[in-house]
């Protein structure tokens, strides 16, 4: 923010009730973190009582566990299995219906969604993920009207990360842990034996208007210092690191590297990595008919490049081996995404590592390829298309 830096304000943790009330007055549906099925998931929240008070998440490859914290922090965890794309781009949705009309048929379009979400607890990596998906759904030649409507109406209430997870590497991807932009409001939670407060700032006119409606006081210097300390602490405690330097060329010049076959031996091709990734956007379209043949519907479903159908073209399946599918996913995510959209497709959130049932870790895979460059690979294996 530089010179225009606004005065920082503080709200008490108990003041979150006021935030919920202000959001509801303005017609927002509050969506945020809550505990369900042994994880912190994003869902509609009725009040701050639904937040994961005093809970944190411990994560490693293929492992996610909730643990009690020794304080009452409401945002003292990292990220769960879901991301906001579940709300911006629902995994299963109807695109249109068709009704038989004599010898003709009539198309009934779906209405553009009107529900406006207030996303509470958005992490810096997740704001970057939304901005990456914006390039796919809004900035490209073909817009997704549903996504665009939901995205434009959504209010982003960021929470700055004060803890880092075992599979986090946002520092390596330059996407966190502190959100610098892309939010309407940003909170930093400061909790210790004497206080439980949020340092709050607005990042947009809409956020400023909401902030003015809240009960706030000027932040104390000690709160600000503690808030910045905690973010710096999170940055220093990343569970993973990733060397992004030259990764585009590293991967695209190593398409025949033996590591791809090695990882394919471990990969289940189950698609979990792509389903949890906050930037993966692939979908498939299915037409369904009823028995009478008088009604048809077109549905869009979240899809994955790990399925065989995904690369089924005329004449057969283009990527029939797990080796080719894993390579496709990783090279697209980390390399050709940059050619296509101008940014990396990876935000360093670590979900694909945590939620892989066999703990495949893309940071390890890329490091293995980097450690064993083309010259070290048998010459006859190089450069094949």
């Amino acid at each position, binding site marked *: 923010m530089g010179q225009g830096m606004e005065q920082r304000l503080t709200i008490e943790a108990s003041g979150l009730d006021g935030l919920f009330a202000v959001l509801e007055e303005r017609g927002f549906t509050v969506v945020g973190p809550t505990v369900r099925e042994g994880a912190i998931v994003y869902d509609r929240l009725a009040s701050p009582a639904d937040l994961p008070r005093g809970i944190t998440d411990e994560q490693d490859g293929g492992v996610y566990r909730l643990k009690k914290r020794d304080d009452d922090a409401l945002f003292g965890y990292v990220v769960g299995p879901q991301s906001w794309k579940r709300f911006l781009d629902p995994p299963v949705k109807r695109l249109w219906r068709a009704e038989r009309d004599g010898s003709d048929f009539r198309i009934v379009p779906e209405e553009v969604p009107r529900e406006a979400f207030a996303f509470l607890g958005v992490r810096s990596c997740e704001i970057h993920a939304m901005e990456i998906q914006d390039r796919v759904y809004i900035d490209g030649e073909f817009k997704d009207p549903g996504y665009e409507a939901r995205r434009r109406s959504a209010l982003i209430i960021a929470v700055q990360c004060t803890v880092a997870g075992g599979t986090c590497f946002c520092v390596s991807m330059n996407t966190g842990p502190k959100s610098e932009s892309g939010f309407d409001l940003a909170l930093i939670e400061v909790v210790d034996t004497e206080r439980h407060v949020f340092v709050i700032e607005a990042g947009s006119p809409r956020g400023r208007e909401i902030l003015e409606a809240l009960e706030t006081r000027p932040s104390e210097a000690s709160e600000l210092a503690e808030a910045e300390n905690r973010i710096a602490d999170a940055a220093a405690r990343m569970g993973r690191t990733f060397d992004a330097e030259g990764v585009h060329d590293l991967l695209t010049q190593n398409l025949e590297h033996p590591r791809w076959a090695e990882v394919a031996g471990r*990969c289940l091709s189950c698609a979990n990595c792509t389903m949890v990734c906050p930037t993966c956007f692939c979908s498939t379209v299915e037409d369904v008919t009823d028995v009478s043949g008088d009604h048809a519907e077109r549905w869009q479903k979240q899809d994955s490049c790990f399925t065989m159908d995904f690369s089924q073209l005329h004449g057969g399946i283009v990527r029939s081996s797990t080796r080719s599918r894993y390579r496709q996913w990783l090279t697209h995510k980390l390399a050709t995404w940059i050619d296509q959209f101008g940014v990396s497709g990876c935000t360093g959130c670590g979900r694909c590592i945590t*939620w892989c049932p066999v703990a495949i870790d893309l940071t390890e895979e890329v490091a293995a390829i980097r450690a064993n460059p083309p010259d070290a690979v048998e010459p006859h294996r190089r450069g094949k298309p």
Partner: protein
Amino acid sequence: MAGKRKPKIAVWKFASCDGCQLSLLDCEDELLAIAGAVEIAYFPEATRTRLKGPYDLSLVEGSITTPEDAARIHHIRRSSKALVTIGACATSGGIQALRNFSDVKDFISIVYAEPAYIDTLTQSTPIGEHVAVDFELRGCPINKAQLVEVITAFLAGRRPKTPAHSICMECKRRGTVCVMVAGATPCLGPVTHAGCGALCPAYGRGCYGCFGPMEVPNTEAMSGAWKALGASEGEVMRVFRNFNAWSAPFRTESEAHEKEE
């Protein structure tokens, strides 16, 4: 659509529990529409009407376990334009294919007072090992929505949509948290064919593979993950030796762990 004449549908039973053909009667909302769109020509579970073939569509439940059935399936094939197997028995031999891993004579002598009356084959085998099958619908039991989809697709002359990817994609789409990663619960979902809508994980338990192997099952890596969660060789063998024990990928994997045990 087959012009003015309604397509004739027959439902046949082989070695099975009847659960899959009951799924057809369980279709409720769609049942009347189906009954209106087709002629139920042979379905002893539902109607006394028995019309002679040929049949436009035969739905076949159950596996082949007797010499009579091995002959009967050929008659049915010859009188059917399209033959669709429904369920794990018809598609992979069913739970009764456990006999394939032992000597069936031993079972007969233990179970029956007069073993001499029993005339059975040494193996329980899927319909596809005996005759050409046009489509195989998975599940133990089948999912009734998928059955309606298969019949509807047949009536419309298109391919049924029953994706062969993992159960995991169904879990993620419905928002179920992974029981394996978050709960250390061993789950066969990553190697199991979708179709049930990821029912078991939604209730906090692991998938046990009712729908059989998915399109590219890496059963070896799956077994490794189970063992990492504490499963013994015997437990890994038994989880693959279930309703779809005789499907090639699950059979190979269970045999590998039988040797290790």
